[in-house]
């Protein structure tokens, strides 16, 4: 899977959808709930279930970040799984307190 900036992906096992904000420095396997992400718009295979230890939930509008590779994703739809890249869990990025300027 080529995680280009702006490319859109969906979970194979929950409703979560993602946009790549920043690509990883090296290729890796990105999964949600233990199953590889699918290109947005492709049909999910049936019968897959979320791995028990990978069910933290995906919050819409949160950005998910992998320190080791630099990969950053924005969740554009919420879901039930957890994101992993090569087995490492992606953490939600803490909100920064920037004052509103617009």
């Amino acid at each position, binding site marked *: 899977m080529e995680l280009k900036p702006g490319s859109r992906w969906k979970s194979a096992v929950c409703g979560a959808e993602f946009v790549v*904000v920043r690509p990883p420095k090296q290729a890796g396997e990105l999964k949600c709930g233990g199953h590889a992400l699918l290109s947005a718009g492709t049909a999910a295979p049936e019968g897959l279930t979320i791995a028990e230890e990978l069910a933290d939930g995906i919050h819409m509008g949160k950005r998910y970040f992998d320190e080791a590779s630099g990969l950053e994703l924005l969740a*554009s739809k919420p879901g039930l799984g957890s994101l992993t890249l090569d087995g490492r869990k992606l953490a939600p990025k803490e909100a920064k307190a*920037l004052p*509103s*300027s*617009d």
Partner: protein
Amino acid sequence: MQTSLLLDMAADAFPDRAAIGPRSHPLVLGKLAASVRAAAGFLAGQGGDTVVFLGLNGEALPIAMFASALIGKPFAPINYRLAEADLRRLVVRTAPSVAIVDDDMLSRVADIEGVRIVARSALEAVCAGPGGQTAELPTCDPDIAVLLFTSGTTGEPKAAVLRHRHLASYVISTVEFMTADEDEAALVSVPPYHIAGISAILTGVYGGRRIVYLPAFTPEAWVDLAAQEAISHAMVVPTMLGRILDVLDGRGIKLPHLKALSYGGGRMPQPVIERAMALLPHVEFVNAYGLTETSSTIAVLGPEDHRQAMASDDPKVRRRLGSVGRPLPTLELEIRDAEGNSLPAGESGEVYVRGEQVAGEYLHKKVIQDDGWFATNDAGWLDEDGFLYVEGRLDDVIVRGGENISPGEIEDVLRTHPAVADLAVFGLPDDQWGEHVACVIVPHGIAPSVDELAAWVKARLRSTKTPETWDFRAELPYNDMGKLLRRALKADLIALRQAAEAA
């Protein structure tokens, strides 16, 4: 990443949240998204490669902007205050295009080849129709989100290119999704063709804050609308703020709902911001510095910075009220000399910036460097704590006998003189020094003497910074965004001097 996705996300998550308009009957996010789809279907059938918008602020603006994104066409809002010939010349440059035009402006852009005109009322009728019934939209790979024409004070206006990735990056890195309180509302009085008008739509929708438009700014109308709509947030340019304070003072009111007021788009005179903070102690002030080419804000002086500076006796902290704060954490910012060498704190040079929101591009001309750095053409310096002081456009810096003199510094000093209502400092050609410092004063009542003004500057700055020629005027020329037309004033004085010498 497309900017229209930001709206889709907001509408998915909170379809009933107020997006635009009065609190009594706002357009909610779900309806906004439906209107955008209807408008996109309609605009897709009109041909043209670009969607032009010629009109006042209002619901049709965000609808047209997001609809353009959905059909993958650049959105080009145009300055309706331009003189007839300039306006038509700009619109000609957008061909082949479709232009959404306010009904009372239709005659101004009639019969331009390659430009299909759609009355704003016709677009609004489409949006009011049954939503979501539109034909399939063309699949597209949108790239350019917005084209903004610069004000063109130095020649033909240039079309600044903002791609979807720049704007989306600015929004998601500076605003947390849907974190505004439900009763918050932002008053937008900057015009559609200004970068702050574009970013206000995107951050308002993504943050979940209702947008209230003021179609044409007067300080009275601004205060009326702010009170009536319980406005919590607003962005103003410096000249607006002074006039708003006059109205609040005159009426003896304080806008209790107002939580945050940001300002930018020009230099804020320190007496004005000090007066604002004293008059509105419940309001958080934010100074935002940015350019069209950087997708809006790149440095921010936040509320806490304002309070610390105001409360401090340390001149180094106090002067921060005149700074634009610190660069956003998502960006790199440097000061460089004319040869491109990075300068240490305290030294003045050109402001350079690099980051994902930085576009640095005009139509047919990329000005960003290959390594991503963008030269802003603004002069400035950083202090030891990283606060950025912007001195004005690099072209406005006065070079007197090899010494670089920033007009802003001299203006700040003279503005504190009680008899000075307004003023401008700039360089005039000088046979001996190359340039000398010239000053035009707008006095309060009776004009002070030149000797008195010169002594005022000399007591506070180096003698080479004291203006050598003085003129007095009843008013200074400003553009509609409150920017001083320094170059027009300078050209005017040069012409007057030449005429005087010839006589």
